[in-house]
């Protein structure tokens, strides 16, 4: 495979960084200061480009995207484009029957992603808003009852990881078919005291493996994305700038939205196609090899696919793009 594809498989676009919640672990440092946002005219041009490039998946996120007054129009335009799938990440606190009715004829192509990090008031304390849990759960139930596909994501932190099985069972009870478990990365608002210890990570993996067979009964597709634990050494691969990229609210193009300072142009100034095709774009990510990572990644049998693991995690811990992922047990 060449260093990067002719077009991304997936583009993740933050339509806004404004948000009605104040999540402790948000990758966005300050959601009260709203950066400039692309006009709907520009967003539509961008979606047209993604269609022409045959991008398969567009993930639309925030902030809370439903805060934008023109967001319904953006969803409708994107969903009617030739992009294969549209995912909207929302906290569901602003969703209601009227919105879902308006979108109901798009549900073959449109799906929602929503986070549940704990149950009840613990979720509220993470989200920084009393009642957030109830509103999110009501939103999920409403979307499921309208026939939308909903994927729940749970971010594991040092204080909620022991509840992982209980959380999965709760998510399953909501009629959700897909549940993805990820772990916190200490960037943005997320502080290091929330980060899982090595022991906690092993413990989570064991709990998950011991219960997985029972949990996937009745059709729940549940995955634990926890690299470098158990069997998953060979599974990590960073696709930033190679088959995926992100767009920030102001149109900045980034390899990874966790690293918003490593930009590679802006779609207000240049066509997205031109930015993607430019050999000088995404150089940090595209030119990364096991040899450029400090340490022994170049000798590692997984080095070529892993390329040092998550660059965001390396920057979070070492403030150095070229350090190996500190979670790896082989470095």
């Amino acid at each position, binding site marked *: *495979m*060449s260093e990067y*594809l*002719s*077009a991304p*498989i997936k583009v993740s676009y933050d339509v806004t960084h404004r948000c009605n919640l104040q999540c402790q672990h948000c990758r966005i440092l300050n959601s009260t200061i709203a950066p400039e946002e692309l006009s709907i005219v520009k967003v539509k041009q961008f979606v047209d480009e993604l269609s022409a490039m*045959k991008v*398969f*998946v567009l993930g639309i996120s925030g902030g809370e995207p439903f805060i934008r007054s023109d967001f319904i129009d953006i969803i409708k335009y994107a969903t009617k484009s*030739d992009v*294969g*799938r549209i995912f909207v990440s929302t906290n569901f606190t602003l969703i209601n029957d009227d919105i879902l009715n308006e979108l109901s004829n798009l549900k073959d*192509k449109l799906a929602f992603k929503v986070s549940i990090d704990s149950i009840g008031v613990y979720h509220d304390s993470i989200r920084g808003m009393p009642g957030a849990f109830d509103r999110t759960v009501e939103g999920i139930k409403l979307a499921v009852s309208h026939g939308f596909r909903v994927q729940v994501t749970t971010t594991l932190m040092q204080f909620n990881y022991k509840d992982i099985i209980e959380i999965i069972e709760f998510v399953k009870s909501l009629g959700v078919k897909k549940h993805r478990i990820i772990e916190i990365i200490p960037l943005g608002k997320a502080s290091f005291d929330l980060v899982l210890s090595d022991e906690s990570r092993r413990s989570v993996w064991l709990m998950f493996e011991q219960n997985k067979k029972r949990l996937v009964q009745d059709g729940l597709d549940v995955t634990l994305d926890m690299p470098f634990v158990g069997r998953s050494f060979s599974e990590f691969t960073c696709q930033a700038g190679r088959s995926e990229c992100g767009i920030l609210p102001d149109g900045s193009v980034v390899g990874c939205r966790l690293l918003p300072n490593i930009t590679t142009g802006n779609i207000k100034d240049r066509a997205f196609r031109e930015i993607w095709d430019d050999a000088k774009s995404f150089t940090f990510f595209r030119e990364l090899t096991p040899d450029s990572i400090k340490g022994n990644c170049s000798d590692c049998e997984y080095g070529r696919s892993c390329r040092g693991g998550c660059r965001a995690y390396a920057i979070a811990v070492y403030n150095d793009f070229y350090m190996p992922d500190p979670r790896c047990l082989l470095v």
Partner: protein
Amino acid sequence: MTENIKDDQIPKLSDDLLIRKEDFGFLVFNPKTETVFQTNSVGAEIIHLCDGKVNIADISMIITEIFEVEKETAINDVKAFLFELIRLDLIEYV
């Protein structure tokens, strides 16, 4: 597995697939399963021929000619590839 696949069966790509040409072959996105399948150049040619008009014997013959492989090898490889496409819900037999 592939012994149940008959030479006169005619494969056809499933509806709604998105297919993109890359240097190495094709990328095929199945919106139903939200998965991406990657082929090499031989796989790309087979997918190109899954138009609901050409049967497996003829697909194998074309592959034999284009890639200069033994007929027996081609038919086994084509059947194995189509078996994988069926498993991934990317084709059906018409």
